[in-house]
Each structure stands twice: as structure tokens, then as C-alpha cells.
């Protein structure tokens, strides 16, 4: 069901963005992750979906080297998770934009570069470029508090993209946004992913969101957190650098979209059922 959708076709870098093998993670006696094998190809968009406590955020955090796996191996862009973090191979965005309110929007975007000692002029040039990419160029000098929630989240994405990472890790980045803003942000994210060629590992609660964004939707179930099924998503094709503006809208109205949504929903239900038997 899933194999044909792996994005080896977009892969220009060769190495996989993420390779997880037999990853287990326990917090004390609680098994948060059990036997997770997952590969995210270069440029591929993969969503993690599942009920609360299924370990999808933990999985993302293991990839980001914010948690260490109990057992198993983690490779990020061909490096260990720690090396990848130190080399800023990935950018990360959380549900809360988490902008520093004493910095201007541009200074927030510059933060990852500043931490890595990039010069002021180069930093500012890159920030302007990224703010253009997320459509906030005229807000470079504003304070985060002056921006709406959706705009703040776009700044957070620009910040995550600052070191030109090959991998973008996103933990429910649109979870706190209203439905209209959310849909606009999804289209925006697809355009950005297409333009930058970055792979994306995306944690979400929303089935339609996972389907419309992803090449593959990874369905997880709790206690212990594990991957139960992988479903093909309906990520719209990118023509050159341009995502047809209405492409996302169009996808939402296709039969294939509804089929995929149904498939994910059934996979989730099946996961919940097996949990019932196990428990």
C-alpha cells in the first residue's frame, strides 16, 4: 500500500532524511515506543498520526535528539541524531510558535544562524529571504506580539528553515490555529517544502491534514507506542517550484482524498481495537 509512495523519486541527495531501526523508548516502566522502524526519504513528506499517548511526539523528539532511544539506531541525514543536531541538519517547529518576544521577527528568524556564529550581514540577508518565502517580508521589524497566531507560526517555520536543513520536524505546528488559517498554512507549507526540497516529519491529530500534506501517513497506536500501518497520502504534485495555488483545494475534493481519509481512519480504529484486546 505504501511502498510506491516513498519519495525516492524526489531524492536528489541520496541519503535518507531519517532512518529508524528497532527504536524502543521507555520512561521508567512506561513503554512510549516499541520496535519502530521508519524511513523518511530525502524530500519526502511523512505524517505521524495516532491517539494521544501513542508516542508520535516522542518519536519526533528521538529524531531531534531531544530524547535518547532506549534501544535501536537513529540516523538523520546519514549522521547520528546527536551529530545531526550539532550540525543543524534539521529545523524544528512546535505547536507553540515559541518566538522570543524581545526580538524582532527578523531577529527571531536569525536566531539559529546567530547561535552558529554566522555574521550579521549574512544573517540579515537570509532572514529577509526566508521572510519573503513565508510571505512576511514587511513584518521583519515587528515584534512577535504584534502578529496573529498564524503569522507567528509562519515565522517559526522560517526560523526552522534558517540553516537550510534537509529535514523539517514539526510537532502539531497548526494545532492551535483556526480551521481557515490552518488550511492556508497547509498550502503554504507544501509550497515551502516543494521550494526548499526539505523532507518533513509532521506530527498531527488531524486525518485530513495528514492525508492532504503527506506522501505517506504513518498510523500509530498506544501502549506501547508502535507503527500499526502506513497509508499513502495525497500530497499534490509540485510543478517546478510552483504549487498550483488551488491544488490543495482540489485534492480535498477528489475521491482519492476521501478514500485515503477512510483508510487512515480504519487503520486508527484497528489500532484502537488491538489495544482493547491487549489491555
Amino acid at each position: 500500500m505504501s511502498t510506491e509512495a516513498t519519495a525516492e523519486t524526489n531524492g536528489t541527495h541520496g541519503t535518507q532524511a531519517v532512518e529508524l531501526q528497532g527504536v524502543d523508548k521507555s520512561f521508567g516502566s512506561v513503554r512510549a515506543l516499541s520496535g519502530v522502524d521508519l524511513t523518511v526519504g530525502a524530500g519526502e513528506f511523512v505524517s505521524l498520526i495516532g491517539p494521544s499517548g501513542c508516542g508520535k511526539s516522542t518519536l519526533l523528539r528521538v529524531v531531534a535528539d531531544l530524547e535518547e532511544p532506549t534501544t535501536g539506531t537513529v540516523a538523520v541525514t546519514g549522521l547520528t541524531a546527536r551529530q545531526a543536531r550539532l550540525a543543524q541538519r534539521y529545523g524544528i517547529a512546535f505547536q507553540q510558535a515559541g518566538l522570543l518576544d524581545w526580538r524582532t521577527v527578523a531577529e527571531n528568524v536569525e536566531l539559529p544562524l546567530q547561535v552558529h556564529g554566522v555574521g550579521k550581514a549574512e544573517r540579515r540577508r537570509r532572514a529577509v529571504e526566508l521572510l519573503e518565502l513565508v510571505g512576511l517580508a514587511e513584518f521583519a521589524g515587528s515584534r512577535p506580539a504584534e502578529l496573529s497566531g498564524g503569522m507567528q507560526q509562519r515565522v517559526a517555520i522560517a526560523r526552522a528553515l534558517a540553516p537550510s536543513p534537509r529535514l523539517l520536524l514539526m510537532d502539531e505546528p497548526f494545532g492551535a490555529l483556526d480551521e481557515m488559517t490552518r488550511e492556508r498554512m497547509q498550502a503554504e507549507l507544501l509550497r515551502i517544502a516543494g521550494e526548499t526540497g526539505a523532507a518533513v516529519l509532521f506530527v498531527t491529530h488531524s486525518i485530513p491534514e495528514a492525508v492532504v500534506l503527506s506522501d505517506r501517513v504513518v498510523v500509530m497506536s498506544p501502549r506501547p507506542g508502535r507503527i500499526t500501518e502506513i497509508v499513502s497520502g495525497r500530497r499534490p504534485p509540485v510543478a517546478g517550484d510552483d504549487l498550483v495555488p488551488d491544488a490543495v483545494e482540489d485534492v480535498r475534493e477528489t475521491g482519492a482524498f476521501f478514500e485515503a481519509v477512510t483508510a487512515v481512519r480504519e487503520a486508527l480504529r484497528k489500532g484502537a481495537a488491538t489495544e482493547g484486546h491487549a489491555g
Partner: protein
Amino acid sequence: MRSRGWLRSGAWAVAAFVLLVALWELAKLVLPADGVTVGGTRVLPRTDDAAMPHVWTVLARLGAPEVAGAADPRSVGAAIASGALFTLGLALGGLVLGGIAGVLLALLMQRFAVAEKAVLPYVIASQTVPLIAIAPLVVGWGGKIAIAGWAWEPWASVMVISSYLAFFPISVGMLRGLTSPRKADVEMFRSLAAGWWTTLLRLRLPASVPHVVPAVRLAAAAAVVGAIVAEISTGTRGGIGRLIIEYAQSATGDPSQMYAAILGAAVLGLVAAGAVGLLELGLRRYRGSVA
């Protein structure tokens, strides 16, 4: 917009002062000179000129010579002003010393959880020891110190005692501020491969400003109080603490002089608080939701 806000709060302070003066004079006018006594217990103080001199008498006293008929015709106002300036200098020195100690302690406690557990109880306990018990100790130790030919002066004891009061609010406020960033922000810095120093400089220090500014304001007031009390308990000359004691001893004959000195001490505290206001103005970029 902002300067108008400052103007308005200044106007309120003046209005409050005028109200206080009016109440003082009203009490003298309305209440009996002998105070109010209920069943042998005096519940309201005497209001005669010896207990509560008129405001204008106090103000007039500022211009009068300190010692009548002395060769050096220094006015009471000049004596108080020079004493206040001397004390302000010591209090500022104490604030800086205490600030440095407080910040270093807070950094230590933030960096090492063990240090917080070990040190924080002593930081709190330090403030329950009465100042007048510490003063002779500091003077005693200081007397044995001579750094590179520089002998310990009494004013140095005053500064150290003042810093002893000032470090406390700063260390507690700073620790609070340093630990105030959300977990997500700290993890963001970790994901950026930022070390402790970079995280301190770019996240913890800026985030601590809204907590530290009120702490510095408290510390400034504490430093002034500490300096005055230390001057009195170490017998240091030249400051307003000594003046208050000298004037208080002659208060039965000349109460307005003592009130003039107390007024001077109050103005001194306001100046110290105002200086912190300037600091706040300089750091307003970092004022968060807490300030």
C-alpha cells in the same frame, strides 16, 4: 505617550505628598495638643509643636545653621544633603556589590540543581540574622584587612553591610528569571545545539529582565536602609544615619531638625528608586508580560 505616563505618575506622587502634608497639619489643627487618651491609654499621639512640628517649621529648619553661633555656618539642609549624598554613594556601592553577588549566586543555583538545594536555604536564612548583629562582625573582620597597602575604612564596612541586604532580592529574583523560560524555548535552544553559555546569553538573561527589575528596585531600597542602619551601628561619620542619631538626641529641644533628617532619608530612598526607573527604561525592550 510613554513620557506622559511618567509625567502622570510623577504628578500622582506629588499629589500624595501634598495630601500627607495636609493630613499632618489637619491632625495638628483638629486633635488636642495632648493627644487622645481613652481610659488612661493614649490612642492618638500628642500634636503639640514638640511632637509634631509644623511642616513649614521643618522646611525653615533646613535653611537655618546647624549649630547656632558656630564658626562654620553650615545650614541643616546642607548638612543633610551632604550626608544623604555620602550615604547614597555607599548604598549604590552596596547595591553593585550585592548585585554581583546575587547574580553569581543565581547563576550557580541555575546551573547546578545541587547548588540550589544547598545554597538557597542559607540565602534565605541570611536575611533572618539581624543587621545590628552583623555590623560589629564586619567591622571586626574589616579591621584586620589591608589590601595592597589600602587599609580598611569604616565606610567599607557600611558598603559591605548594605550589600548584605541588597544581594537577597537580586539573587532570588534572578534565579526566578533565569528559570522562567518555557521548556519548549529551552528545547528550541537545545535543538539549535546551543550550549549553556549561549542559552544563558540569548534566552535566560533576556527572559529574566522582567523578574530582575522589580528585584533591583527592592534591593535599592534595602541597600539604602542597610547603609543607614550600618552607619548608625558602626558609628560611621559623614552619612545621614549619623545625622539622624545626632538630631534625634536633641529632638526634645529641636524636633524639627530630626524630621528634616528623616525627610532627607526619604528623599534618598526616592532617588535610589528613581535610578532603578532609569535602568528599567534602558531595558524596556526586554520587559515581558510580567513587568
